[in-house]
């Protein structure tokens, strides 16, 4: 469904100029969430529950309030009643009500004249807790004897007879499973688990909120989406959405975790209580790991059938996922995408969203997809292994392609899975020799991408430059991509484009930089806004020349007569028209707003080589290859960066990252020392191949690339470890003790 004729030859797209914000970010000048200050500012701190599940009997803040420098304390009593649905969930998560639902759940917050005083004051707040039984494991939470975390949390979808902790149920599929399995020469059934992983952005959440007695104010915050922050914060506070203007700072990583609110409503509530003094809140790493959203953990059963020549005949998956104390584990997406790489006639998925005494999960890069990929791509690897089939050839045989009816229903348009598999197969990494205790793993993955509410403006400036204003914060170089697309659309140099991330007061609603949408949707809006401008620029030229605007075309950054019949006039450049703008009708700008529906998913195939120490079970990544479809790579270096970053995060999730809860329900590893993200010496160079199967729903063919990259690493690494050790390990992470136990036959 092409929106327009697609360009194929480009002047700027596909080049790799310096990013506009590069200088600020290598000199320390860029201002992130915690770098914003205001005169008269107070500092906030949060008291958090040390219990996994406890009734809050009484909160006494008198000693804290008596401490010199303390200006306000807020508890749930300072927030309105009567919220429902996700608004209530957000409010309850930002500040506990009757019960603390997890270790780290906010119970009270303080504003004081210094960060030290605020932290001291928090320790003086006395809370009487009645400790309740808790559960943190998804399978345990579904058992009959599991403590009930919240009555009535389940929605209409949950069948009768399930534990009240099961809050949503999904069931989808098609075809005839019995028939499909009967056609198989080999059926494999396995159960898998993955642990919760945190997004691990290096910048902790930080904000500065200011709100007067009239409930109006401002918020400066590091976020992926400031319109989301505005809507959510005001909903939690029970005030009108537009009472607050939200300005995004630079953002030090998000990966999905900064698409919601935690401390933002607290800073506003504290500010209001102090008579409108600005209140800055900065989380510690401990708070980030205990109280913001990691992704869900999963427990999954997969059954797949294959003929001996490699055709998948049937697939069934059951997915149980916990996303903390609130509904929202991404099991809906997990079930949709579990088998989506392949053309399978008989397929069925069942999903359970389960609540536990853990922090409310937040989106994490391709939310829900990596867990399912681990289970399904491990099972396919095992089928190939037992049938003696090549894993890439087998995937090619079953691969979804244009016209394939997806396992979730609709037919695919042009997609690039086949191309990624073919590129992986011919890459030198796929034929590199392997030594003893080494193994190679292959896996593919998919993310369907997103359009989302999008609003942008482009203004022509009097000096002949153009200023693009978008609403999606730049997390990984998207200013450069927007500037390239604007340069291409206008036919002006990249250096003549300025890119602005606007606050909530300056544009219509924008969804966050999430769902791999920024380059697609804000890019589309930038191009369409530019085209809107170009029409106006042509009109100015036409007026000057005294000809019909229809007789003016825009080419190479200039207005030109469309042909000899239009008249003989020298081309007018953008700079010339801009220079006269003030006297020819005033400012020129273009706008675009839509929820664009032309997004299209991105497939990727990863190939990894590992070596496993047979005496300790430790896995070393030797080689890593990412092949992914970008549709059209706008700034190829940042596209590669997304591939590499996604792979690194997936490797971490596969090998060492995990949430470890003790018997007491407390998080054992809320520190980077023990929440083990990959460090520089853990990884090799990450090789990349950009495949380009243009998306017809974008003027330049863009597909979002941000999320797919985290999906294949979990199974690819597990498949490589399988080959290196001869052991199939169905539980992530592949920590050394687990791998060693498997090698020793104790797994």
């Amino acid at each position, binding site marked *: 469904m092409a929106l327009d004729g697609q360009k194929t030859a480009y002047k700027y797209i596909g080049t790799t100029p310096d990013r506009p914000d590069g200088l600020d970010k290598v000199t320390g000048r860029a201002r992130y969430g915690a770098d914003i200050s205001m005169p008269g500012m107070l500092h906030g701190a949060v008291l958090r529950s040390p219990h996994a599940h406890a009734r809050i009997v009484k909160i006494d803040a008198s000693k804290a309030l008596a401490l010199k420098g303390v200006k306000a304390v807020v508890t749930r009593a300072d927030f309105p009643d009567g919220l429902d649905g996700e608004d209530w969930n957000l409010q309850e998560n930002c500040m506990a009500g009757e019960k603390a639902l997890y270790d780290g759940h906010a119970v009270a917050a303080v504003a004081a004249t210094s960060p030290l005083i605020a932290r001291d004051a928090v320790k003086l707040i006395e809370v009487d807790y009645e400790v309740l039984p808790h559960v943190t494991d998804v399978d345990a939470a579904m058992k009959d004897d599991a403590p009930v975390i919240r009555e009535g949390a389940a929605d209409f979808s949950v069948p009768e007879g399930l534990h009240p902790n099961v809050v949503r149920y999904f069931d989808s599929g098609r075809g005839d499973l019995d028939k499909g399995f009967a056609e198989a020469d080999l059926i494999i059934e396995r159960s898998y688990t993955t642990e919760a992983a945190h997004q691990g952005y290096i910048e902790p959440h930080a904000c500065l909120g200011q709100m007067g007695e009239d409930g109006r104010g401002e918020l400066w915050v590091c976020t992926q989406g400031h319109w989301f922050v505005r809507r959510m914060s005001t909903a939690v506070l029970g005030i009108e959405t537009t009472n607050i203007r939200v300005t995004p700072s630079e953002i030090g990583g998000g990966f999905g975790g900064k698409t919601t609110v935690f401390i933002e409503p607290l800073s506003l509530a504290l500010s209001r209580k102090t008579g409108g003094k600005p209140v800055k809140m900065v989380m510690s790493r401990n708070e980030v790991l205990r109280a913001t959203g990691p992704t869900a953990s999963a427990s999954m059963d997969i059954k797949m059938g294959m003929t001996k020549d490699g055709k998948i005949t049937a697939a069934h998956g059951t997915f149980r996922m916990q996303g903390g104390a609130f509904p929202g584990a991404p099991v809906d997406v997990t079930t949709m995408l579990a088998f989506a790489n392949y053309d399978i006639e008989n397929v069925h998925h069942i999903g359970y969203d389960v609540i536990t005494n853990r922090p409310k999960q937040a989106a994490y890069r391709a939310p829900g997809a990596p867990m399912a990929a681990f289970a399904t791509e491990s099972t396919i690897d095992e089928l190939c292994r037992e049938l003696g089939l090549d894993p890439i050839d087998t995937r090619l045989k079953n691969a979804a392609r244009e016209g394939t009816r997806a396992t979730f229903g609709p037919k695919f348009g042009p997609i690039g899975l086949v191309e990624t598999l073919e590129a992986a197969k011919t890459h030198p990494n796929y034929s590199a020799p392997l030594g003893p205790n080494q193994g190679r793993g292959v896996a593919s993955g998919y993310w369907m991408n997103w359009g989302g509410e999008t609003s942008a403006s482009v203004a022509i400036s009097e000096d002949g430059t153009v200023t693009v204003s978008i609403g999606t914060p730049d997390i990984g170089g998207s200013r450069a991509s927007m500037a390239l697309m604007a340069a291409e659309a206008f036919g002006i140099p990249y250096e003549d484009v300025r890119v602005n991330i606007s606050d909530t007061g300056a544009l219509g609603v924008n969804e966050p930089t999430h769902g791999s949408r920024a380059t697609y949707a804000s890019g589309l809006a930038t191009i369409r806004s530019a085209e809107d401008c170009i029409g106006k620029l042509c009109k100015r030229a036409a007026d000057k020349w005294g000809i019909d605007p229809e007789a003016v075309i825009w080419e190479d950054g200039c207005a030109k007569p469309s042909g000899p019949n239009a008249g003989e006039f020298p081309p007018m450049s953008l700079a010339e028209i801009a220079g006269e703008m003030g006297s020819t009708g005033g400012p020129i700008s273009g706008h675009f707003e839509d929820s664009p529906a*032309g997004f299209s998913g991105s497939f990727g195939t990863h190939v990894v080589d590992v070596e496993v120490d047979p005496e300790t079970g430790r896995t070393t990544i030797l080689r890593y290859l990412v092949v992914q479809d970008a549709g059209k790579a706008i700034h190829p270096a940042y596209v590669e960066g997304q591939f590499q970053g996604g792979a690194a995060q997936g490797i971490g999730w596969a090998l060492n990252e995990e949430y470890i809860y003790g018997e007491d329900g407390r998080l054992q590893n809320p520190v980077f020392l023990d929440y083990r993200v990959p460090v520089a010496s853990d990884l090799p160079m990450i090789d990349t191949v950009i495949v380009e199967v243009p998306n017809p729903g974008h003027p330049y063919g863009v597909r979002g690339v941000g999320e797919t990259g985290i999906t294949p690493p979990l199974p690819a690494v597990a498949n490589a470890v399988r080959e290196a050790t001869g052991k199939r390990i169905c539980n992530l992470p592949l920590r050394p003790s687990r791998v060693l136990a498997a090698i020793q036959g104790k797994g």
Partner: protein
Amino acid sequence: MAEVHLWSGLRSLADGKEMVEVPGATVGQVLDSLVAAHPGLEPALQRGVSVAVDGQIVPNSRNHPVDPDSEIFLLQKLAGG
């Protein structure tokens, strides 16, 4: 009449049907017709669904046009990181 395909979890709310034919020139009209024909679907639709029209997912777009021979799939609500 457009064909609307329901995921299996929705079928019990629509008299066990996998596919329902309902009138409507836009996504919004089709969804309204669907609820009129099968009121049991209302909570599911209120919770939020994604709609694919002829292979294209059209989020938040009740005004998106639907042809008489369009193939529509209801999908679970999407999100992203």
